[in-house]
């Protein structure tokens, strides 16, 4: 029971850090996936006096991944009822060319502004419609969501670090006595601190494996999967190799720093 209590305080603190960290990454991945989805649906319309290829648009601004000419047929069809066929042909020749530009990623408002000015700087392009208002609203909403989650994760991290520092004092008191006694019998520093480092690493492993279990379960939990399905994105909630290695690395690093702080703060009894 005493041994469980010894481990529980650090394991819980580590779990809290690992949770806030993984939560942040899930949100980051969701936003990235959602941006990709938005970029597929978002496009800019450019009006040109002459024919321009996809490569020509890409040369104007690298963000343009594809340019597709919009056929003027539907507009002409509406007008053609009152016009002679020769006039329709003439109109077809004099009408400017409309292009739907697809972008390589979901752009920021600054990138949209730059794209618009780059396009308008081209001699042939006369008008650009960037649907900036709609874009900005969606983009700001995403940004707000990301900032709220970042803030939440940071607060959890800060509170946990403060808790860990409080725990550190208790550990320092608990381990100082044993380290001093070992020192009186000539134990080298590594031997005096071995128990502490072993305890810290065991706690890091415990926290990592508990986090692994919980996130593996969550990543296949139907309710979680439905949330992503509802907004039409596919997100890896937990990668059992990459994410686990990262969680393990962070947990071990925090534990070792904690143990090192105790060892460095240890004062010999005089």
């Amino acid at each position: 029971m005493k041994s469980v209590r010894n481990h529980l305080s650090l394991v819980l603190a580590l779990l809290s850090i690992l949770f806030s960290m993984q939560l942040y990454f899930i949100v980051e991945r969701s936003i990235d996936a959602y941006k990709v989805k938005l970029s597929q649906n978002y496009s800019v319309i450019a009006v040109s006096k002459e024919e321009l290829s996809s490569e020509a648009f890409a040369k104007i601004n690298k963000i343009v991944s594809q340019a597709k000419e919009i056929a003027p047929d539907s507009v002409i069809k509406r007008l053609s009822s009152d016009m002679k066929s020769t006039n329709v042909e003439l109109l077809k020749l004099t009408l400017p060319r409309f292009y739907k530009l697809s972008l390589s990623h979901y752009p920021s408002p600054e990138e949209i502004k730059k794209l618009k000015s780059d396009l308008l700087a081209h001699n042939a392009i006369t008008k650009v419609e960037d649907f900036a208002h709609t874009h900005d609203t969606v983009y700001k909403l995403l940004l707000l969501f990301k900032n709220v989650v970042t803030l939440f994760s940071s607060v959890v991290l800060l509170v946990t670090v403060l808790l860990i520092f409080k725990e550190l004092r208790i550990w320092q008191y608990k381990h100082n006595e044993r380290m001093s006694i070992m020192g009186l019998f000539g134990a080298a520093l590594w031997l005096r601190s071995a128990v502490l480092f072993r305890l810290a690493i065991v706690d890091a492993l415990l926290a990592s494996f508990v986090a692994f279990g919980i996130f593996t379960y969550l990543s296949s939990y139907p309710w979680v999967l439905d949330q992503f399905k509802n907004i039409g994105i596919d997100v890896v909630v937990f990668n059992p190799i990459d994410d686990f290695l990262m969680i393990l690395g962070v947990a071990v690093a925090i534990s070792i720093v904690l143990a090192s702080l105790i060892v460095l703060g240890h004062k010999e009894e005089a």
Partner: protein
Amino acid sequence: MDKVIIAQDLSLAYSNNETIINKASFSINSGNFVFITGASGSGKSTLLKSLYGALKPKQGSLVVGGVELKAISRSKLNFLRRHIGIVFQDYKLVKEWTIEKNIMLPLLINGYLKSVAQDQVEKLLKHVRLNHQIGKYPLELSGGEQQRVAMARALAHNPILIMADEPTGNLDEYSSQLIWNLLEGANNQLKTTVIVVTHNIPKNLSVDYKHFHIEYGNIHEIR
């Protein structure tokens, strides 16, 4: 006879700079049994601390086991302490370890194999008459029993020097007698140098001993 401890004009002080021991010179030979007495606060324990390197000399020279302690490095101090056994009035046992592990501590530090260390611990526990308590933790034992564990730990690695700071201060007669017997035995049979800080020198000792008395920061050799 080899000198285990040589002090020349030794002055000791804590960080507040108040001198506790003032320019003392003395020596202790290998195999001596030495008592250090003095009134409370006279500096007996301070002197003992300096002998095991927990307090560096403020002035003068202090050589223990051929090593000058004034500017000793941590690794050399560790090496020296591996050849010393220390007994404290408050036992200084690791509470979260069993008494077996506590006694094993100096053996493991000195690189003994665990199986050899375990055999040695069993012998020592019989010696201090605690072999039936092997799996217990220090706080499950009485004060006298804890001090016997501390004594067994001090003897475990056959040190060249045993230092004891008021080892029988809080003990009943039975435990006190057992501690004195063990210290005498180590001195008689193993020729271990023994230094004991105490208020009262026991009357029924069978060993020949040296006696230093500390008064007003000065060390007087009485016997």
